[in-house]
């Protein structure tokens, strides 16, 4: 079956991705035990209780919203979009890391992705869930949300395809579907492993159903490889398209600060930027808690730091261009918008944003900081805040001051804006916690494929030791 193990081409000699000394058995043991045999530890229980409470806050916030209407939020005229769209864009952005890591890095043969891809894919999935809530809830009449889908009906009502919101519907739903499939397909061999390792009946049945009859046959692996590559191919354009389409929500508008061509690339870069920051924010504590240092090595976190630095610089370029054209174009409304951001009513948010998104990542030039878990953790959180602020600046401050000074207004979030945001964060963490405990967070079989390389120059390891995946 050696031919069926994913090939590990490495044209350039690099340090091994995982720590040496791991064997196929120890990898399986290490990862599957988190799911199968580990006792419920107190930390996990506390976190799940805490985030579970937050999920209830989400439930209450949504219920109140549906009862009273979007007026429970702080939105108004002229700022008709507030936390709803900010959070939507923020969450969608966070979701980008998963697809990027799993699809693009796969196609580029960046094998270091294996230790983190499942984790970030799960994160993507949950982030897209959180994101998907907002376009639905922000509607004045959410019960009519299906009107945004082209559902044939007797009234011949049809969506209006010139609207970027319409494009959003397709972009986000496609993205969510492909992300789910990608994640699930990648999980099938590991579900089979868990099925075989599971001691209790429930585990056997559930994992057995999830494994969809995976036996590790050569034919299975061959089809798996093709399917996974195809999905990667499908997901790759989505990495670029989803946030491009989301940026069209703004770029298509006439509002100063929205109507700029730099939006799509700078949104995509920003999305990857925030996505990697979120992977770090979640991965670093999980790594420490479950002692995964030999699977998620310093090289992983350093690479992620590098990606953040690169995307952060693209974002900085976007800000610079925005600034430049704001003044260079000689347009009154645009010029005012930029000046207002720098020294006017929007300056607080804008200055914070510059600090978080441009100043902070510059520390990542230093290898020492890139290798420091604590520093990276702090930076990743600052970047997450910064990227949220970026969307705040784009959505809110542009709407607060547009063309007619008489129509200007200010946005003040209400308790329900904040509780819904906290609710989605809690939901996200809640789902991540469940994921960590019930699904192997690191792909077992892909790590095993890396073992030969990690033992550089060592004897070829016989791959058929994966008996647990063979049929009975």
């Amino acid at each position, binding site marked *: 079956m050696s031919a069926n193990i994913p090939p590990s081409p490495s044209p350039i000699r690099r340090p091994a991705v995982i720590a040496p000394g791991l064997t196929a058995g120890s990898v399986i043991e290490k990862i599957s035990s988190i799911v199968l045999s580990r006792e419920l530890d107190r930390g996990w229980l506390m976190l799940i209780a805490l985030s579970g409470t937050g999920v209830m806050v989400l439930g209450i916030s949504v219920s109140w919203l549906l009862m009273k209407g979007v007026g*429970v939020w702080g939105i108004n005229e002229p700022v008709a979009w507030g936390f709803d769209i900010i959070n939507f864009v923020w969450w969608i952005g966070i979701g980008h890391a998963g697809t990027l890591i799993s699809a693009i890095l796969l196609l580029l043969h960046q094998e270091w992705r294996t230790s983190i891809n499942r984790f970030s894919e799960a994160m993507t999935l949950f982030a897209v869930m959180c994101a998907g809530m907002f376009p639905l809830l922000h509607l004045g009449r959410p019960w009519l949300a299906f009107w945004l889908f082209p559902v044939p009906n007797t009234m011949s009502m049809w969506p209006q395809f010139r609207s970027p919101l319409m494009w959003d519907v397709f972009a986000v739903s496609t993205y969510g579907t492909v992300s789910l499939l990608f994640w699930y397909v990648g999980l099938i061999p590991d579900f089979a492993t868990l099925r075989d390792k599971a001691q209790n009946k429930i585990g056997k049945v559930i994992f057995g159903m999830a494994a969809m009859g995976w036996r590790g046959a050569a034919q299975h692996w061959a089809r798996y490889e093709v399917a996974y590559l195809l999905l990667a191919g499908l997901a790759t354009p989505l990495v670029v398209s989803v946030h491009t389409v989301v940026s069209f929500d703004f770029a298509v508008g006439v509002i100063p600060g929205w109507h700029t061509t730099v939006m799509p690339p700078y949104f995509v870069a920003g999305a990857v930027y925030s996505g990697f920051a979120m992977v770090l924010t979640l991965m670093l504590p999980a790594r420490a808690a479950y002692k995964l240092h030999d699977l998620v090595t310093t090289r992983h976190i350093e690479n992620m730091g590098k990606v953040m630095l690169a995307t952060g610089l693209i974002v900085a370029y976007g800000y610079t261009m925005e600034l430049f054209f704001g003044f260079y174009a000689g347009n009154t409304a645009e010029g005012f918008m930029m000046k207002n951001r720098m020294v006017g009513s929007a300056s607080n948010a804008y200055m914070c944003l510059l600090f978080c998104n441009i100043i902070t990542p510059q520390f990542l030039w230093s290898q020492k900081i890139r290798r420091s878990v604590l520093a990276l953790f702090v930076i990743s959180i600052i970047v997450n805040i910064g990227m949220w602020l970026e969307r705040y600046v784009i959505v809110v401050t542009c709407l607060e001051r547009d063309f007619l000074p008489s129509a200007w207004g200010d946005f003040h979030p209400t308790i329900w804006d904040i509780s819904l945001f906290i609710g989605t964060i809690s939901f996200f963490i809640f789902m991540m916690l469940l994921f960590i405990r019930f699904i192997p967070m690191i792909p077992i079989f892909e790590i095993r494929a890396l073992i030969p390389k990690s033992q550089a120059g060592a004897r070829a390891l016989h791959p058929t030791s994966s008996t647990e995946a063979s049929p009975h």
Partner: protein
Amino acid sequence: MSETTPVAMPHEALQSLADKSGRKYWRSLDELSRDAEFSAQLTDHVRREFPSQVEMLADPVQRRTFLQLMGASLALAGISSCTRQPDEHILPYAKSPESMIPGKPLYFATAMPWSSGAIGLLVESHMGRPTKCEGNPEHAGSRGATDLFSQASVLDLYDPDRSTTIVHNGQLSTWDQLTTTLGPDLEAQKLKRGAGVRILSSCVNSPSLAAQMVDVLTQFPRARWIQCDPVSRDNQRMGALLAFAEDVAPRFDLSKAEVIVTLESDLLADGPHAVRHARAWADRRRDPSKFNRLYCVESTPTGTGTMADHRLALAPSEIERVARAIAQAVGVDVGAAGGAQLGGEVSSWVANLVKDLKAQAGKSLVVAGEPLSAQVHALVNAINDKLHNVGATLEYAEPAAPVSIEQQAGLVQLAQEMSRGEVEMLIIIDANPVYDAPADLEFVAAMQKVPMRIHYGLREDETGWLCNWHIPATHYLEMWSDARAFDGTLSIVQPLIAPLYGAKSVHEFVSVLAGHAGISGYDTVREFWKAKLGAPADFEKRWQRALHDGLLADSGLPARAVTLKRFDAGAAPTIQTGELELALRPDPSLFDGRFANNGWLQEVPKPLSKLTWDNALYLNIDDAKRFDVKSGQVVELTHLGRKLKVAAWIQPGQAHGAATLHLGFGRTRAGRNGNGTGFNAYALRTSTALWGGAATIAKTGETYLLACAQEHHDMNEQGYARDLIRETTPAEFARGEYGAPAEHAGHEPAVAVSKGHDTGHGEKPAHAEGALITQYDSYKYEGYAWGMVIDLSTCTGCNACVVACVAENNIPIVGKEQVHRGRELHWIRIDRYFTGAKNNPGIVFQPIVCMQCENAPCEVVCPVGATSHGNEGLNEMVYNRCVGTKYCSNNCPYKVRRFNFLLYSDWSTPSLKLQRNPDVSVRSRGVMEKCTYCVQRISQARIDAKREDRRIRDGEVQTACQQVCPAQAITFGDINDKTSIVHAQKKQPHNYGLLTELNTAPRTTYLSRVSNPNPEMGA
């Protein structure tokens, strides 16, 4: 049981037959055995023979029967909805009343009574429900327009807080009880010749009601009738008495005046006269070659002030000095102490003004506002006399009120009499002295010494609450009455609807006082006019004519020749320094407080401050700095020893040293909308200083939330000048400068000359203002193409359009908190911009409706196509399709879209449902809405035109805002019609679109504001 009973014995059955008289037919023995008598015998029989079965007979509800009954009950419960209807015959509406077509409104002429002069109205009635007031084009006080109060008055009719029943000492009562109880009391008073009776009413404008009152007074000769409004014409009246020794009221003809000077008078926007004044004034402001010139001296910025070519903001005492200086300068004898020396800039300002006045002698006009003293009114009369304006730009006539008295003096005397215990019966009609009497009269304490207090009014208000009897009044749309316009023209007030709560009209109530209980209001009014008009032969014809037209032709009061007498002009007031001068003024939205429970008026942003739901103490920015006060901070205001905590508001345009507080707020028993809004300025008002005077303020450290609909944002914030308002002068206009910024001048923006817009002669196309050149053919509007032009030169910011739009389009009120959050729903807003110096700025109004862009940014972004473009150029909003993404609003550069963030429309209060315009959807929560150019009116006109196989005529469709505008600042029509007025307006050289650089191609455009400054004074 009968089925199971053994068959009856034949002889018993025969017996029962034998007992019957006459013949009875029976079909079977069973039938016979069901006979009651027979079953009684049977029971006996069973009891004897089968004792164990007796129970079953006595109590028939056994298990089986129980089940039968229950089954039947359930089945019946199910069919209870099919209850047989009572046998009452209804008739189809086969023969409807003449001209009543369901779905088509009817219009009836009536008039809104108002103490200083009624406004003639045509009221729209849908199937018997009055829904909206329009001005009566024939009526002298209206000419087709109205003020905001008339527009809002229809909501007062349906106010759910109106009192519905007579209340006697807190108990519900009836009209019969009232008349029977009151009878002996009145008889007792009659013996005393009415010595203990006092009637207090608001100023009566109805001649027939005045005649009834006089009738009452003849029966109670020692009784007294006091008319008193908090905002009266006492000073004007006494000024006329001083100057002419006659009680006459001036009537202005602004159309003939070349130079108009207003002194503390909101001539163009305050009170019912303003409708006509604004019209006459605006007619002179459309053609730059015919411009008049308006000077305005005022303490508080008003609509008139914003329109002035020269505005001088001064504290009230300084205004009086200016008036005296003008009088002196034009040669009026002001007496030894009556003159005034003015300082520096004011002096040269006044000198230029006087020069202008003298140059235009006979064609000028000086107007004094009510807050100025009687002496100043007399002096102004003298000035106009000296300038030979009398007979040209103004004339004098009897006041519109049939019985003109000095109102405040009467009220003061009443309070004294009451506190001395001389009043035994106080009858209050349509007045609320507990709330609005001057504080020094201690009206409540005095009133409570009166043993019998009767209140007749629309609501059980502050006064009604403290009276023994409260009698609900009829709204003017529910009653017969009559009223005089400002020039005396008579209108019959005819009811549009029977009293909603069965109330009796004021005529019927006064009839009771006069001892003629039972006479209907209709008879009273009709009999009065029958007697008045004489000629009984054609009375019916004239009466019907008057009802139809809404006025009695040629009934205006004739002008009276007056001669100026010598009078003592008194002494000029000294200017107070260091302190503030408090100015108490009627509120631009609530007037004196009578409209406090009217949500439309509470929510309409005040013209200058844009405050809603509150009044506040207006301070000049320098004064605010001096006292270290910011907007929204609560200060303690002290005036003549009385204190009041009020929120401060820094108002650009407010005079130095003047602090203005509007009357009408702080009510406690107005109703759900009026209670607890703002601050009660009457608590500071005294009978000796009705309009304010020296005051001090002290900070309290408290803050108060003021809901302002438009913050004070600078047009040129951050140094970026925006081309939103264009201003020019007649001289510049002649040179071809229309106020566009320098970069635009000379090269007009590239205009689309595509096929759709080509006028064929290389002319500037009428629509698609400023549309950019495109390689694509734009849509051809071949049928109608609706467009609007708003003339910034004439908009006085009076808010009538805002309230008219609310009434026409079923726009709900959202409340103070929601306005504060920026969620008001008005489809038309009047933008107010300040220019120039912060402490004495120029002020401009710009009404903003939906621009109906030909390239509308809102349309492309709606994911469900809920807003789309009609083939007549309207940007249409489909409420039922809207899911509420709000994207359209975000993408609207003019921010004219309004969103129902919560459920704002009142779907539950029954009376409010009656008010709604059935032609316009009532919007629910989560739906976007906006101005539609009153598309329902366009549709109606289209139907009418199609039936007659013709095009819609120019002027046939009027939008609600256009129709109501006293200054006719709004023009609307088909711009494809080359003969239409709107087409001509669009071709004006100073027509411009807002934000056309965005290529929105707005259908609503503006005419640059042209002002006519005195060349010698600079702009």
